[in-house]
């Protein structure tokens, strides 16, 4: 379980969080949604240690995030935008990640096989299309059998087949007991597999609960309509 307590963060004059409290259940897919500048990516990056909090505590499966790096060995991270080094191949990067992890782990490349990356995995990333680079981004995130997956707009730039394969893999990971925290602006996509919705607005939790509960709460037929109602202020916000 991810627990966040009293999290505060300010970038200059912009206050992103002022005492955020949130918990994300283990073994479920939690869709992190909200308007632009709600703090979604900042929260993900804080969990990864990329951004330091001004105050507050975060813990993953009981391990307090105190600035050390070892806890990240159980995390698979797929950033929204990756401008990979042009002269490296996907395999070069993978080998670097293996070296970072002590050289003991044999990476799981089943996603690369599913994407049929083949020789593209060994070609310089600078000559690959954006979609292929995004596939490699996904392969790297899933390669070390993570217990926690943090995915920031994972299907952006993927063709429908690759997006479908990736979503199937996310579902398989959930069945394996992996906790998944995912942001996406494609709400129907989240609706397919998100157990929980965590709606952030202006740095606070405006709604958290099951996707079905959000639909019922807003009187909407689909999750997309429910989110639209939340965004437009047409439904009272509350933490479920």
């Amino acid at each position: 379980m991810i627990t966040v307590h009293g999290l505060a963060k300010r970038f200059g004059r912009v206050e992103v969080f002022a005492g955020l409290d949130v918990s994300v259940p283990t073994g479920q897919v939690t869709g992190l949604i909200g308007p632009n500048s709600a703090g979604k990516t900042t929260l993900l990056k804080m969990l990864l240690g990329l951004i330091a909090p001004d105050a507050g505590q975060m813990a993953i499966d009981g391990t307090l995030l105190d600035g050390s790096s070892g806890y990240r060995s159980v995390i698979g991270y797929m950033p929204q935008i990756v401008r990979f080094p042009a002269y490296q191949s996907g395999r070069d990067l993978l080998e670097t990640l293996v070296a970072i992890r002590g050289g003991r782990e044999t990476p799981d490349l089943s996603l690369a096989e599913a994407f049929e990356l083949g020789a593209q995995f060994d070609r310089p990333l600078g000559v690959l299309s954006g979609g292929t680079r995004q596939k490699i981004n996904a392969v790297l995130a899933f390669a070390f059998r993570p217990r926690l997956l943090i995915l920031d707009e994972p299907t952006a730039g993927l063709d429908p087949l690759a997006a479908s394969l990736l979503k199937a893999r996310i579902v398989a990971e959930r069945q394996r007991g992996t906790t998944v925290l995912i942001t996406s602006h494609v709400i129907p996509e989240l609706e397919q597999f998100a157990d929980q919705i965590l709606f952030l607005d202006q740095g606070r939790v405006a709604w958290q609960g099951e996707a079905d509960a959000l639909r019922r709460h807003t009187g909407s037929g689909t999750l997309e309509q429910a989110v639209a109602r939340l965004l437009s202020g047409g439904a009272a916000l509350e933490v479920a």
Partner: protein
Amino acid sequence: MRLTLRLLRLAAREAMRGRWLIALAVTLAVIGELLLRFAGGGVTTVLSLLDIALIVTPLAGLVLGTIQVHHAREVTELLLAQPIPRGRLFAGLWLGSTLPLAAALAAGLLAPFVWHGMLLGPGGIQLIALVAMVVLLTLVSSALAFVIALRVDDRVRALGVAIAVWFVAAIAWDGIVLVVALVFADRSVELPVLLLLVLNPLDVARVLLLVGSDAAAMLGYTGAVLAKTLGATAGRAVLALTLLLWTVLPLWWARRSFARKDF
């Protein structure tokens, strides 16, 4: 260590992209070759190379370093999301950015002398000292580039700051020294001039190479004040210590900036 070397290799391969380093080495080698042909070998050629190296080294270190840090921003985030302490990642990225540049500059300076078999001839020791100084100045300028790139998020602004730092240190410094000397003309000028000397690593490197040599005319105002105040031996010791601090402090600052940076 293996991990640091792997990260170094990753950064070094990126540093070689665009062939900038090869172009830099070839340019320095061609200049060295022309100087050897027209000015003959020996100390005179090395001193001419010194002036060129003091312009080129900080410019290359600051500009290429700043560009490289910004260019590697996203992949740095990806690597930082792995179980690796920031200090180790910094070491790999900084060494990978700095060592290829230092090697390119050293190779460009040495190549014509090696080609003509003049490395052990007159001026050989001065050339080796010059190369050592260029390597140290590469470390300094590359560390400062990391500081600039990590503290200024906007790529264009960061590049502007890097070029401004280079301009002040490599081009405008003599003018600043002159202004200070004029301001303190009716008082004791030694202390402010010596302070100015230690504040600029390029000046420190230049004076350290020249003080006590036959080329006292090239010492400049700050070097002349140092030689007059402290003498050649004590002056050398002070400058060597200063250059050591100039190597360590920017590196410490860069590492600290990397450790505290929100990515």
